[in-house]
């Protein structure tokens, strides 16, 4: 019986798909600008605080890459931009070139490489 339960658990873990972040609570919520400023001021500390965590950020859409399903948040006042790789197949409506709106995005922070990067992202809200 214990073996069957153990095998079932292993199979469950093995087959588990990446979490849908619309159903998950964010570890941190903040403006995209505050996140950008924190990474700009002290990258090591920000990496330590946020890498691997679910972040909910709000800010203006600077750029959309429909082909790769990417959204860049920020404007000229941001020290660095926030790049979010959205979960493919998620929010097709907003991914039209030329869309400029404020959005709330939830994603997993993967670190900093020219931009602060989030992935597995979902759009929570847009204004």
């Amino acid at each position, binding site marked *: 019986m214990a073996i069957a339960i153990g095998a079932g658990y292993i199979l469950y873990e093995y087959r588990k798909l990446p979490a849908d972040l619309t159903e998950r609570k964010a570890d941190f919520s903040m403006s995209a600008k505050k996140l950008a400023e924190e990474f700009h001021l002290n990258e090591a500390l920000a990496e330590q605080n946020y890498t691997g965590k679910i972040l909910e950020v709000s800010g203006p859409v600077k750029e959309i*890459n429909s082909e790769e399903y990417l959204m860049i948040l920020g404007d000229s006042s941001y020290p660095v931009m926030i*790049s979010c790789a959205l979960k493919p197949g998620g929010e097709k409506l907003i991914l039209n070139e030329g869309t400029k709106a404020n959005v709330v995005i939830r994603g997993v922070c*993967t*670190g900093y490489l020219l*931009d602060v990067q989030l992935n597995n992202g979902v759009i929570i809200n847009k204004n």
Partner: protein
Amino acid sequence: MKQLATIVCICLNSFWVNGQKLITRTASIGFYSDAPLEKITATNRQGVCLLDIDNNTIEAAVLMRGFEFRKTLMQEHFNENYVESHRYPKAQFKGKISSGSPQWTTDGNYDVQLEGTLTIHGETRTVRLPASIRVNKGIVSAQAEFSINVDDYKIRIPALVADNINKNIRIDIHTGDLH
């Protein structure tokens, strides 16, 4: 007047030099392991690639944690056990076009060889990689496909999963449009 001319010259020169560097922050990097028991694929859509067409040098980097897997457990094992993303967060290539002569202002496909250093898991190796550069309506993009052996980068695969992970990993890079 002379001072003004000098300033204009400096500005133009600066613009020209900067104009020779093309960049993308949305390069797609995929890797594939084809082993007897399992096929594993992962993609990162946020690679950075900088191409200096003035001196034919190229730099590319990617965050290891940014690779997206189909299954959560694979992603966790990849980051925590194999590439140790917390210790070695980035992979990086720095090199130059060592053979082939792309005509940056003439549309066409150009096969080239890249020569440089590839750093993964904190290990740096000298590599020669085949790549293809495309110029279409003046827009430059590039792609490369090559394989690495995980042993070269001291990535240890436990014997228990030896039939699940191929030690030779195929890597595909598509820069998309460079601007």
